[in-house]
């Protein structure tokens, strides 16, 4: 059985300066209660790897507003002007990465691959300073793997062994990040007895999940 913690106890595992991957797409499929607790906790100097920072004061936007984030690797911050302000003022070091490259870099980190070879971004400023590789006379951009100290993810159903299942578009980055965090904390809508999620429905095997968040009271 995986340990299951209250959100406020789970965030105690995370030190200042930690490198976090956070699931979700505009807040959809983000671990809402965990992010609320993290924003409340007064952490500083976090690195966040996520698709976006949602909207001001929402989900990852709560961490931005709390001043907890000093570095951000994301594909889109357009709907959160607070993140944009932090980028322009220099308070947040923002690395913008094409979305398909971002998710593939996270996958490469979790899958033990050396990097991602893509045409996306080639010849644009998004490729500045990046290595290229010539393969059979064609040029490819080499994007490096991403890993994190913690992956904070959300799921629809979990079982007590940590097996996870996701719902509709709340899936997004969550199953990919589940392999790329040294410690994986999952907030699921419900936690079922072991064996209640059929093997073919499990999308993330429990063996890669370290902690579950207790259901809301």
């Amino acid at each position, binding site marked *: 059985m995986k340990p299951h913690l209250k959100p406020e106890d789970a965030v105690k595992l995370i030190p200042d300066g930690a490198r976090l991957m956070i699931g979700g797409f505009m807040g959809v499929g983000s671990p809402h209660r965990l992010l609320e607790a993290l924003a409340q906790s007064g952490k500083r100097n976090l690195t966040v790897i996520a698709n976006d920072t949602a909207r001001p004061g929402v989900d990852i936007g709560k961490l931005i507003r709390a001043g907890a984030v000093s570095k951000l690797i994301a594909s889109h911050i357009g709907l959160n002007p607070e993140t944009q302000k932090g980028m322009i003022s220099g308070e947040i070091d923002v690395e913008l990465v094409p979305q*398909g490259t971002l*998710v593939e870099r996270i996958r490469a980190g979790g899958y033990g691959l050396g990097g991602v070879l893509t045409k996306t971004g080639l010849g644009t400023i998004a490729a500045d300073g990046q290595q290229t590789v010539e393969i059979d006379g064609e040029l490819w951009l080499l994007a490096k793997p991403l890993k994190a100290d913690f992956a904070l993810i959300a799921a629809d159903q979990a079982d007590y062994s940590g097996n996870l299942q996701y719902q509709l578009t709340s899936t997004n980055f969550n199953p990919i990040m589940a392999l790329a965090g040294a410690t994986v904390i999952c907030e699921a809508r419900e936690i079922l007895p072991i064996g209640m999620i059929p093997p073919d429905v499990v*999308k993330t095997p429990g063996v890669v999940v370290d902690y579950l968040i207790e259901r809301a009271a």
Partner: protein
Amino acid sequence: MKPEEIIQRRVARELKPNSLVNLGIGLPTGVAKFIDEHDNILFESENGIVGLAAKPPEGMDDPDLTDAGGGTVSAIPGAATIDSAYSFGLIRGGHLDATVLGALEVDEEGLLANWVVPGKMVPGMGGAMDLVTGARRVIVAMNHTARGAPKIVPKCTLPLTSIRRISLIVTDLAVIEPTDEGLVLRERAPGVTVDQIVAATSAKLVIDGDVPEMDLGVAA
């Protein structure tokens, strides 16, 4: 007819039966309204769904079924949800027949800038770079000018989205196709003259003979 309806109707006629299409948030999303249902065009959204449909009736939505803008949507029977890696596998791997997206600038080489105005607007590229690099056809749907200034320019001044040439530009004034020979003016919007298009365009246009009026399928 409103300018954006002209654009949306014309783009709709560009989409092929049974094709897989990604519509950008905003004006491109509205293209779906003008599709012939019998064409079985399948819409996808890069946040992870194939078979996207319009926003459901009030009170029948769910926060876990959204489009790439985070707004709730519905799905067709036979829809499939996918994770972000698979989603971009479809896009990057050449499985997406067409993407329709907006632009800040398009230039004479057919290159597109649509993701950043340095120092001013830093939304990030989101999925745009993958879409423009990977989709089989890239259709730009935009107003011809922004506050009177041409958006079709000799050379993009803003950072490029991709070094790949886009397939077609559809505006409220014209249909323009980037080719090896330059930007070819293919069609005029109803009631718009070639001179008006040239005046609203700072890029050089290739105009070869008579330029027909757009067929929008209805009276404009």
